[in-house]
């Protein structure tokens, strides 16, 4: 079954055509890579899927057409988005609060939120960072936390924008293990050839506003 699909998606930003008719679909549990040169429209594509960019064409989440801000509000609780720059994404005072944000917003009870946060801290082996202010984290730690704070949302799909940039060997390995393990569908925008070879998922190439399978 298709969770997310896109038909003839077109986006214009400041008079420039950034996406020129993109077609794409993602099945439940499917994991894919999107690669391609800088400025080809990869980030814009993810942002459009989240409803942050005005577009023409069709975006469907589980068969439902998304048009208005309200439609996308529904999607955003269930499709997670990991920013290219974790500094832009993290805004809570500490790691723990950052992870608790999404479940609290969902209206989950405090005790349960605590459990979710505990589990995620353990899963990503970042328990020692629990009370650390997010701005004091290292670049790699920020990246892991920016993934973890989306995971606590328990999303059906996660869109990730260059998630392995700046990770050391150990953290890279941890993230790859998470990618293999998770039940969520994944769309990973990346240039990391080692990552693509290791996981061997389907690859798409975004070039000049067009998406084709490699």
């Amino acid at each position: 079954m298709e969770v997310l699909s896109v038909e003839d998606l077109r986006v214009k930003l400041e008079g420039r055509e950034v996406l020129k008719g993109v077609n794409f679909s993602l099945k439940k549990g499917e994991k894919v890579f999107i690669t391609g040169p800088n400025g080809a429209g990869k980030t814009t594509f993810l942002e459009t899927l989240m409803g942050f960019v005005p577009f023409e064409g069709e975006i469907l989440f589980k068969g439902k057409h998304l048009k208005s801000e309200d439609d996308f509000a529904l999607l955003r609780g269930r499709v997670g988005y990991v920013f290219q720059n974790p500094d832009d994404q993290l805004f809570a005072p500490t790691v723990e609060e950052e992870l608790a944000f999404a479940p609290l917003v969902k209206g989950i009870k405090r005790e349960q939120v605590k459990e979710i946060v505990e589990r995620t801290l353990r899963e990503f082996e970042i328990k020692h960072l629990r009370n650390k202010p997010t701005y004091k984290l290292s670049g790699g730690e920020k990246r892991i936390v920016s993934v973890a704070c989306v995971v606590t949302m328990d999303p059906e799909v996660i869109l990730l924008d260059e998630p392995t940039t700046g990770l050391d060997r150990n953290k890279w390995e941890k993230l790859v293990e998470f990618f293999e393990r998770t039940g969520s569908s994944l769309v990973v925008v990346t240039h990391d050839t080692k990552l693509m070879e290791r996981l061997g998922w389907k690859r798409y190439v975004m070039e000049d506003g067009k998406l084709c399978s490699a």
Partner: protein
Amino acid sequence: MDTATEGEKVETPLNGEGLLSRLDPRVKIVLFLVLAWTVALAGNLLQVFVFLPLALLFYSTAYRKTTTILKLLLFADFFLLFVVLTQLFLGSPYEGILIFFKSTVIVLFSLLLLTTSSVFDLLHALHHLKVPNKLLQITFFFYRYLFTVREQLQLAEKSAKSRGFIPKTSIQTYKTYAYFMGNLLLKSYFKSENVYKALISRGFKGYFPVFRHFELRKLDILFSLFTIIYWGVAVWKFYL
């Protein structure tokens, strides 16, 4: 939240529009202060109406921006609407009408004399008009980083939204806004430290060298003469 498209600059609404934008900002600031204070001190409708033709004449130089001007005149100021309406229905209707016209004329002067120059030109002119340097430095840094700070907020909003945040009347919402602010304060605090280091490492001593200097031209002098004579006659006939 006012969501502006990315890359948009924060700038005065009529920057570069029409004949008045070509005048020396020093001249415009001084004339604005004279005119605005005069109208602000007006005690009856006649004293306000005598300046309306001048305001409309100024407006005619920027008629192409009529929509922008009308929006700023009518909808920008909730407080004015509030005062005028409460006066019309619960106080003195005359006061309401007087305030409406006073405000409209002053705002027209402000739009056409001040906001036809860019922010930088206005700050530069204030420097020549002897506004304390430290205050201008703060103003300069404020303006220099205003867009960055706003972008920072938009990113945090985007991040929260992408994790399912929908603003409503709840403690969770207010807490989220507090986190946005905390985050902005924190980032700005560090940013200001870096700005300071960058400044002193370039030998900054607390004032900005000005490369471009204003020059009074014929147009400035003619415009000043015309405005001052208009003002003089109006004050003589209607105020004294």
